[in-house]
């Protein structure tokens, strides 16, 4: 076993994998990486299973030392990573010598960066997953964000990671978007025509008060349905509920599993990883699409992600 020493954790760094779906009946949300596509590609780069545990950093990266060396890849947002003041190429596998220090800084583009290591980050699974669920303090490394001085076990380096990177074409196909495609939500008919116009054509700003539980939208209030009492029901990932004050909230990976606010729309599967890359204060729009289009895009994207021959150069 090798280790990873946290010299500085960054703003919010947690252990994540692809989450723990299947525990809705006991109220446990799946959690998992906010940008699962970046996590999968990072893992594949270093020769892991796509769903191995890695570190998810938010807006500001940390400083990590690898006393025994490691094979790593950085994916997702560009946090200006360096080793000995030399930039580290993103979306590529690197072998680090024993004692190497990896330094990341503030983001240069999007919200979340992933550090994948060969052999994965080793933590005791909770309900079959290494993902941290911050709200309940379950999973991950002691159920919390990493702190200075934490030492995490990682896979050993003798497993040779292939020297490869993700192709530009693939990065283009998977690139973040500020226009999120959505399908209509179960309660869309409870909203007025005017509210629907505002929602599908207006520009919203991602609130500072956004996190892994949900992204709050500022700029327009949807007011036609404020008394919209409804019976609490299950919430899918990416559901856009409208609260009593008229604020739309995109429910995200650590979301509550049930709620009683009406839902106007739902982010489609292929754009969920893009939600994970939205920074506070960016302006976004919602574009209506059909279930059929959403499904064919999903099948296409999964086919791509499951074809290593097409992903790497």
């Amino acid at each position, binding site marked *: 076993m090798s280790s990873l020493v946290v010299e500085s954790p960054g703003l919010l760094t947690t252990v994540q994998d692809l989450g723990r779906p299947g*525990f809705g009946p006991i109220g446990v949300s799946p959690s998992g990486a906010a940008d699962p596509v970046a996590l999968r590609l990072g893992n594949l780069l270093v020769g892991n299973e796509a769903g191995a545990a890695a570190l998810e950093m938010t807006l500001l990266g940390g400083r990590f030392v690898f006393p025994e060396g490691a094979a790593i890849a950085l994916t997702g947002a560009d946090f200006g990573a360096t080793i000995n003041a030399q930039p580290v190429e993103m979306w590529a596998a690197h072998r680090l010598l024993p004692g190497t220090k990896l330094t990341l800084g503030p983001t240069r583009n999007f919200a979340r960066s992933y550090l994948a290591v060969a052999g994965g980050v080793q933590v005791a699974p*909770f309900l079959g997953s290494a993902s941290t669920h911050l709200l309940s303090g379950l999973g991950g490394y002691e159920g919390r964000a990493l702190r200075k001085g934490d030492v995490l076990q990682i896979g050993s380096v003798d497993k040779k990671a292939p020297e490869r990177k993700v192709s530009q074409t693939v990065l283009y196909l998977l690139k973040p978007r500020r226009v999120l495609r959505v399908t209509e939500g179960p309660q869309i008919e409870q909203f007025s025509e005017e509210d629907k116009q505002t929602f599908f054509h207006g520009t919203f700003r991602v609130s500072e008060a956004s996190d892994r539980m949900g992204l709050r939208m500022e700029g327009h209030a949807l007011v036609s349905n404020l008394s919209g009492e409804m019976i609490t029901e*299950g919430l*899918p990932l990416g559901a856009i509920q409208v609260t009593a004050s008229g604020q739309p909230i995109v429910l995200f990976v650590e979301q509550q599993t049930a709620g009683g606010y009406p839902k106007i729309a739902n*982010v*489609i*599967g292929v754009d969920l990883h893009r939600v994970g890359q939205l920074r506070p204060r960016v302006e976004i729009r919602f574009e209506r699409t059909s279930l059929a289009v959403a*499904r064919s895009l999903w099948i296409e994207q999964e086919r791509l992600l499951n074809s290593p021959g097409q992903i790497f150069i």
Partner: protein
Amino acid sequence: MRFCAASDQAMLVYLGEEIGLPAHERVLKLLRLLQKEPPDWVRNLHPAYTSLLVTFDAGRVGHAEVEATLRKLEQRVTATRRPKSRTVEIPVCYGGEFGPDLEEVARIHGRKTSEVIELHTSRTYHAYFLGFAPGFAYLGDVPREIATPRLETPRKKVPRGSVGIAGRQTAVYPFATPGGWRLIGRTPVAVFRRERKPMELISIGDQVKFRPITREEFRKLESA
């Protein structure tokens, strides 16, 4: 049975239009059938008062196939016997720092706090489903005499173990989370513990009774 696409990867199945035991039984039976013989495309199941949200692998099936499968299962729902429910007793210390909204709830209904406690402990509640947070059970129905709407501004942090009322629902907060329910007491018992099997103290379909305890008992149970 009414179907509604909740997302490109999720289907909502409504098994009733109002909160109550008839809808609950149908939800519970369909849930158990799906858990016993899960189709390989099921990713997650979220039961609620009158509905079941089924999330699925969109790479394998679409909404039409999901609906067809669930319709077939539904024919067996009526024939399925309701699973046996357990009775769970939860000790609660009411009022004071543990139940900061108890006096307000009493005031709203023009009652003494002791009457609110008596009414809250007077019945056996039904665990309709778990949701919101790990182990959070939606219990009902609270007697009309003490049914109280949520706080206008939710608390940023509700202490773990807090017992709250929202309308005719009551629940125990398993974790320190944000929350808008009126807090009338607190239990020293862990309602969700990862080292326990099952982790959740209250399961869907269980019968739940609250038992009033003193501060001394609270401390004793807390350190036990």
